[in-house]
């Protein structure tokens, strides 16, 4: 049971990690928490579902298309909404994203209806028997894809030129400008990539949770919790935070109470922040204000 639940926790955790990475990227680059992140994930999922159901596309074709559309949505949001509020206060920026979240969610209810809808999985759901433990290819696939995406992102930010520029632009915008980097453009791209990542997370999550307009409810918050737990602004922190959250949740539900499953993530978060306020992997206090 223990091992089964740890495996389970890792699956969920890798999804939280993927979402947390998107959150943390935006925080690092724009200094704000994007409360619409979960809803962007939801919209991306529905775009994919529409492409499959209405457009008749194969899942493997629909997903990359949906990711691109999501990124485009992210770009639009940055230009149309965030730009306007950019130089106003931190709180305004936050409220703006809450507003976007509201619009996206209700828009989805109108466009796609309020019932949960089945979402196809790209991996098989027939369980495999490994050392007596049941694990589906879907689980394994989810973990692998999430990890792969995060590692690819790390590679992007450290080795690929534009990624490096984005990284510099987030950590030190004035100096980056002085190095000839268009910081504004870098921010724009960060947001778009973050949105694309959210869509990836969504298409991995939806086979488990069904596509629904309120998908973002719990996972949205957990993404923030994971990002903060691992150290906000830190890519590996997001990964670590997500995995820890997933496992703690699974174990808490198993050994303490399954009804309070969702609470465990937040309990862990509070404890960690109490002991180490900057999060697990961050070294000093990041003062973005």
């Amino acid at each position, binding site marked *: 049971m223990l091992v*089964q639940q740890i495996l389970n926790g890792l699956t969920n955790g890798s999804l939280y990690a993927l979402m947390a990475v998107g959150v943390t990227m935006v925080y690092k680059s724009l200094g704000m928490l994007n409360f619409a992140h979960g809803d962007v994930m939801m919209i991306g999922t529905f775009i994919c579902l529409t492409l499959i159901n209405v457009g008749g596309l194969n899942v493997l074709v629909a997903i990359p298309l949906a990711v691109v559309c999501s990124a485009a949505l992210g770009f639009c949001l940055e230009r149309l909404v965030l730009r306007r509020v950019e130089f106003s206060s931190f709180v305004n920026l936050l409220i703006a994203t809450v507003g976007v979240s509201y619009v996206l969610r209700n828009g989805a209810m109108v466009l796609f209806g309020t*019932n949960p809808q089945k979402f196809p999985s790209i991996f098989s759901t027939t369980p495999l028997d490994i050392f007596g433990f049941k694990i589906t290819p879907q689980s394994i696939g989810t973990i692998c894809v999430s990890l792969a995406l995060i590692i690819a992102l790390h590679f992007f930010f450290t080795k690929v030129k534009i990624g490096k520029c984005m990284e510099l632009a987030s950590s030190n915008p004035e100096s980056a400008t002085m190095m000839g980097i268009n910081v504004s453009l870098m921010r724009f791209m960060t947001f778009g990539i973050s949105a694309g990542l959210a869509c990836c997370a969504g298409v991995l999550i939806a086979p*488990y949770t069904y596509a629904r307009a309120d998908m973002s409810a719990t996972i949205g918050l957990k993404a923030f919790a994971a990002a903060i737990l691992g150290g906000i602004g830190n890519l590996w922190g997001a990964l670590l935070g997500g995995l820890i959250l997933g496992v703690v949740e699974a174990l808490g539900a198993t050994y303490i109470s399954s009804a309070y499953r969702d609470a465990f993530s937040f309990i862990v978060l509070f404890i960690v922040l109490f002991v180490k306020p900057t999060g697990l992997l961050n070294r000093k206090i990041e003062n973005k204000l």
Partner: protein
Amino acid sequence: MKKLTALLLALAMVLSLAACGSSSSTSDADTSTTTTSETSDSTTTSSSDTFKIGLVCPLSGSSAVSGAILQNAVQMAVDEINEEGGINGSIQIELISADDEAVPATSVTAVQKLVEQDKVNVVIGSQPSSCTLANMEITEAAHIPQITPASSNVSITESGNDYIYRMTSTDTTNAKTLLKYAQSLGYTKIAMCYESSDFGTGGYNIVAGLVEEYGIEMVDSEVYNSGDTDFSVILGKMDAAQPDCFFMWGYHTECAAIMTQMQQYGYDYQMIGYGMNSPELVTLGGDAVEGICICTSFDAADPDPDVQEFDTKYQELYGTSYDQNGPQSYDAVYLIADAVERAIADGADWSSGEVLNEYIASAEYTGLTGTTTFDENGEMVKDLMIITVKDGIHEIIDWQ
């Protein structure tokens, strides 16, 4: 200029919120005139020549599918009656719907609006037990009869409320039917999962209290929350208790997920339950829900001609399928119409809530769902059936 824009934006927000929050009325007109009713030849005149039915149910949120069924069925019945001229051939029915989003607090507000603002003669609703339990106090205080065609928690009719009626099977009848069925299959140990809401908890309590009578032991029970998506933990625990079968008391979304995960983890148990008989179960669950046994008071698989006619017409009008709450709501409207007609025949004033209440209490109406009468608590007794899903289609099991 900035201030003006801000002002306009604020105004737009307020208006859109108001539009969202308001109920979807079929007609706004308040036709309370003082003309005497043509059908009444007694001195007691009705204050209007329309009969207002208020419907409260979830029209948005995760229970929207279930709520829509009430809305559709009630609308169908209302339209049919109005086409024939109305109740007693002359009284048109006005249907006013209110969305309670399956949230008890919202349900209370919705019924308050129906009763105080729209001044309805009767309320039908709600669908979730938690909402009905909350909002039935409003109709009781206003002396307006209320029929719930869908809520199954027993406290609804056991709280001394004289104005509430139920036209769906109770948790007790459901539980008894399920346990009897399990017993007939030779099961002696069950593990049960249920939703943490009033609906699920109510069901669990009753089943837990009745198991012994059927020679069954409940070896494990697990609770989950509506909206949960990961059931591996509870399924693992239920499996570890080594039951003969699984019991479930909850709704179709979670049921589909639970059975899908049972398949993924290789938990091969018979699932028996109540609450998940919805058109969406097969859509969401696919082949994972094959073989599930659900107890219900109505299923379109019933060969009765009236049932078939309802089924065909509902499909034609709305294009979706429905669960037992559909015909129950449909019958509720006709039962009410019948009560009004009997009142008129007696020369009584049906516009008075107390009077109408008496006539509903004494109803004996035969419709799609059989013959409906109410006991002194407003409870209805009915014989139930067990259906199963075979090749994605519902099939009635002949087991008695």
